[in-house]
């Protein structure tokens, strides 16, 4: 748990700020010093680069062509190597520190987001779109990383190169220095303008790529249709159109590049040449030394050319900022407080549950989902919920683990108000078997022990799997319990998944159980197996069953029939069958189906008599 406390300690919320740059600065907490050092090293490196040219000046003015200075030649050589070594070391240091900062900050952000997302409320998750969320935590976080490791440091580099070299130029000769930067604003503006435009063109190119991929994907997934209709040529023509479209967009992209670079080459080249001419002129007139000219010719290169890339960096920085904003949108959301609650029992709960006038509605929606729900159940009893889709069955059971909190009324567990229990404790006491069970892309063993939070022996796992009637299925896989589930491993059927979930819940051994008994997607044999597995599971636990069939409610201690968020009928099977109402209606339909089936079969059994047109179709017109 050490790791997780360390991981959880970082609070990204403090980086929320109207000013994005300030936000980014706050995120760097703990690594600011290394980031500042990275930038300082960069500045120092630029100074040593400039110093190299100054050494060249000294060399040309005071050493070359003076035989008496020959003895200091080796020192000049050592000087060059030393300066380059220092500059190189500083450059490396700066790169390493920037990477250190960027990677560490990104790691913190990733961990934070991961944890944050799993702790956001149910209300958030039911609205959020998975694809978009993943896009934000991957691509946008990576854009942030690039901001720290490349763009921010890149801008710094150009800034230092410019100021330091320009200072050196001013020192060499003010007039020459000023002449050398005349065209630079033009270069900068052209570059920003160009990169903005080309980013757009590139986006269009990427969009076309997406269109092309869609055509390809539809063709590949629909290969049977294509073949069945022998439409290969038609498909080729369709692909050709988008493929050519991509070529055209790509050509446009390169046309822009092939226009920008020579133009900026021309501007920069001319600027440099003008500098050379003026400098040389001044050197001839003796206003500057030959050495100064040499230094100038070297320095001016580092002044002009980097600016061409500044536009790119600036444009990229703005996309980095947008990404940062998108990430912070997630951070802004409120987490579910897992530990909040003032009542924390030592051991397990008993499982006496009482609902009194419970109402529930979603925050952003006034229409109530549950209204005036009142019932009670003793520990170990089974409560069955019956009703149409949207009648509130699922919402009702979601209140128990506090996935949502009821808006009024009271729910007590063992006589204590539910809201006083911390969510974490509550959830440890409740087991859920969902209608559409979700398994993780892990081994079956890991899925069964997922969330148990203690070491589980192989015997225990197998016992649970046997009780859930899934042990034999698991053994039939070549890798047994180590078989991977999902994309890269085996695909389990709905019924098999459900039984793995049952095994998982058996190991968890909760006091309260929530079951969704949808077995409509599994075939008859497994249905019976699941039923007995479920019965195993229910023994001795307070159970809430969301029932989709009358068979599974008949033995319940209490049946609640829900409609539009209200309880319309309440009682045992015997009570409800003798009442007028939905329950009896359901019961009668089932009886009717069985008798009709019997009639059908009886008819077919009459030898020589052909089955009359299916009785099912009496309601459907037979126009032919």
């Amino acid at each position, binding site marked *: 748990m050490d790791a997780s406390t360390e991981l959880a300690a970082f609070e990204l919320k403090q980086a929320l700020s109207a000013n994005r740059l300030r936000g980014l600065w706050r995120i760097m907490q703990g690594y600011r010093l290394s980031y500042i050092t990275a930038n300082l090293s960069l500045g120092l490196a630029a100074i040593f680069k400039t110093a190299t040219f100054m050494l060249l000046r000294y060399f040309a003015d005071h050493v070359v062509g003076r035989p008496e200075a020959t003895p200091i030649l080796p020192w000049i050589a050592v000087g060059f190597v030393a300066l380059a070594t220092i500059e190189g070391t500083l450059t490396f240091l700066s790169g390493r520190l920037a990477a250190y900062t960027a990677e560490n900050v*990104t790691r913190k952000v990733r961990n934070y987001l991961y944890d944050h997302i799993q702790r956001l409320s149910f209300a958030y998750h039911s609205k959020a779109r998975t694809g978009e969320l993943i896009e934000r935590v991957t691509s946008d976080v990576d854009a942030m990383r690039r901001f720290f490791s490349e763009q921010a440091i890149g801008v710094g580099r150009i800034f230092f190169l410019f100021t330091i070299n320009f200072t050196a130029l001013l020192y060499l000769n003010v007039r020459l220095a000023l002449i050398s930067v005349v065209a630079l604003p033009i270069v900068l503006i052209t570059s920003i303008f160009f990169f903005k435009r080309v980013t757009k063109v590139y986006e269009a190119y990427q969009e076309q790529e997406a269109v092309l991929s869609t055509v390809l994907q539809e063709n590949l997934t629909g290969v049977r249709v294509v073949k069945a209709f022998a439409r290969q040529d038609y498909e080729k023509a369709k692909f050709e159109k988008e493929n050519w479209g991509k070529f055209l967009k790509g050509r446009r992209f390169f046309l822009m590049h092939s226009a920008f670079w020579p133009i900026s080459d021309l501007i920069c080249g001319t600027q440099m040449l003008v500098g050379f001419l003026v400098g040389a002129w001044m050197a001839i007139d003796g206003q500057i030394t030959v050495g100064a000219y040499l230094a100038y010719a070297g320095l001016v290169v580092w002044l002009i050319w980097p600016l061409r890339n500044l536009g790119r960096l600036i444009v990229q920085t703005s996309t980095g900022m947008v990404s940062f904003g998108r990430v912070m949108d997630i951070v802004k959301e409120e987490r579910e407080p897992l530990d909040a609650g003032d009542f924390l029992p030592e051991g397990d709960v008993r499982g006496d549950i009482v609902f009194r006038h419970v109402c529930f509605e979603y925050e952003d929606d006034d229409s109530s989902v549950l209204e005036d729900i009142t019932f009670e159940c003793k520990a170990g009893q089974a409560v069955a919920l019956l009703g149409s889709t949207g009648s509130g069955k699922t919402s009702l059971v979601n209140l128990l683990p506090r996935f949502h909190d009821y808006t009024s009324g009271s729910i007590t567990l063992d006589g204590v108000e539910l809201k006083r229990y911390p969510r974490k404790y509550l959830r440890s006491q409740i087991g859920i078997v969902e209608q559409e069970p979700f398994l993780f892309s892990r081994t079956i063993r890991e899925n069964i022990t997922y969330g148990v939070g203690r070491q589980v022996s192989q015997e225990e796992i197998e016992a649970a799997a046997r009780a859930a009637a899934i042990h034999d299925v698991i053994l039939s896989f070549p890798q047994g319990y180590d078989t991977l589930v999902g994309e890269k491993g085996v695909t389990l059927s709905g019924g098999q998944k459900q039984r793995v979930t049952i095994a998982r819940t058996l190991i968890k051994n909760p006091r309260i159980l929530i079951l969704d008994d949808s077995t409509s997607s599994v075939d008859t044999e497994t249905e019976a197996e699941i039923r007995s597995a479920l019965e195993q599971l229910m023994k001795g636990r307070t159970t809430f069953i969301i029932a989709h069939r009358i068979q599974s409610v008949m033995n319940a201690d209490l049946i609640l029939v829900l409609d539009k968020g209200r309880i319309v009928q309440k009682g045992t099977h015997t009570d409800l069958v003798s009442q007028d109402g939905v329950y009896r209606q359901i019961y009668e339909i089932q009886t009717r189906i069985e008798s009709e089936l019997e009639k059908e079969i009886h008819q*077919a*059994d009459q030898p020589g008599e052909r089955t009359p047109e299916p009785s099912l179709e009496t309601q459907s017109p037979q126009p032919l």
Partner: protein
Amino acid sequence: MSDQYFDEEDFNTQFSKKTVLRILSKTVPYWHWVTGFLATVVAVSFLDSYFTYLSKRIIDEGILAGNKSALTHIVTIYGLLIVIQAGMVFGFIYLAGVLGERVRYDLRKELFHKLQDLSLSYYSRTHVGWIMSRVTSDTERVSDLVTWGLLDVTWAAANIVTSAYFMLRINWRLGVIVLAILPLIILVAIQFRKKILHEFRNVRRVNSRITSAYNQNITGVRVVKALGREDANLAEFGELTSDMYRASYRAAWLSALFLPTVQIISAFALGGVAWYGGLQANLGALTVGGIQAFVSYITFMMWPIQDIARVYAEMQQSIASAERMFSLLDSEPEVRDRPDAYDPGSLQGDIEFDHVTFYYDEDKPVLQDFTLKVRRGETIALVGPTGGGKSTIVNLVCRFYEPRKGVIRIGGVDYTRFSLQAIQSRIGVVLQTPHLFSGTIRENIRYGRLDASDEEVEKAAQLAGAHDFITAFEKGYESEVGEGGNLLSTGQKQLISLARAVLAQPEIFIMDEATSSVDTLTETLIQKGMENLMRGRTSFIIAHRLSTIKRADRILVIEDGRIVEMGTHAELLRLRGHYYNLYTRQFRHEKSEELELYKLLGAQAV
């Protein structure tokens, strides 16, 4: 995202001459483009070197000689050459860029055409994501290699050669000293690049695991919360991000070390120039301008070396890409026309399975010694458990696959003697999960027969029972169906795919009935549409609905690749066997649906 589940295979590829030649052959049709950009890039590089030489002359012939007219003369030449060079820069970016796009276009086209020819068996054993990566990312890598890769290498080589030339020309002794360190730098650079590339691969690998961890955690958030696994999850994820940190930090600082290392090594050359050059200058063998030129040429040579190193490192990856791509291009379709294949003009006649055996994997037979004779115009309902072999039977009829043993005859003739086009253009297929293409409803129906008029399209829709819901849309037949048809309901998609099959006027009709239920009205429409299609046509229906099953002339219960029961509805029911079980179950299901029991119970319609 599509790539995330596939760890790309490792690139231990040997430098394969054959593959490289094959890659290069893709540019042969554009050889003049290639020579064009290579020539310009060499010229650009030469001019760059020459500029340095001109700078030397400015110093020596202008400044040191105090000759202003010589200075203006040299600067004028310099200026003119800058303009010419700018034109050339335009040329090579345009040529290489557009050529790259063109090669990508060609490769994609070639791959796509190949994919249209490949048999269904290829698709059943190859993941769609894998194929997608070949067509998207591999084509990029390969075309980048033959354009930008080639360009970078040429540019770098030209820079080295021209710099060497001018250095030797200015002072050959000093030139030799400088050139001596060149191999060292190249060696160091390549080693660096290899290491860096290796680290980046690790980064990508961990990255895909991170993405999938996010994905699992978000889609499974209910379970995570219910089981209170947040802390354990975070601890696990923390290990992943630590791995990521290690790999990417290492990759980043190796990259940061690369350039300074090259610079420091070249500083030794610079020191050598200062020392030995100073001596030479004092002897009068070297001018100040010459020294300046040497300083420039050293930098000039060092820059391109990192490009060579990069291209060399990436080349291995590109070759691996090319090999995967070529493996797709070299796949042979398993089902294809015989040389003497012909079009019989019609597929009407009895269809006969004569001791047919079929398997996808040799040790797992799907159909074994299967014999069946279907009379012309007969409707066959295939029922039985999933994986029993029903789909295989219809796939064989469509000749998506061919029998491994035995013969299938249509009208008494072995159908492998017919051309694929002849068979497939006369079979109408409606799949269980209807597949529609992005586009309008009209386009999707017309897929059945491309030259059909608008009236014919609408007529087909009417026969299929799709017309009413289509015209209820604001844009009618011009409504977009969305990607994969996702703007329509399942029932609507089924109706449209029925209309598509109706329009094709097939002689044999094959339908894999959907298991998912649709509303009663749509169901009635679908039944009616099917009936229209089946009339007078030999039909194979993988049936689920009782009404469909009962309507068939013959019901086949298929299990484990064999016919376990065969006969009419009444006959089979009397057997109290497989069909009986299947029937009673489905009867309860359909009745519950019909009497709205499911609605009362809030059960998921299945």
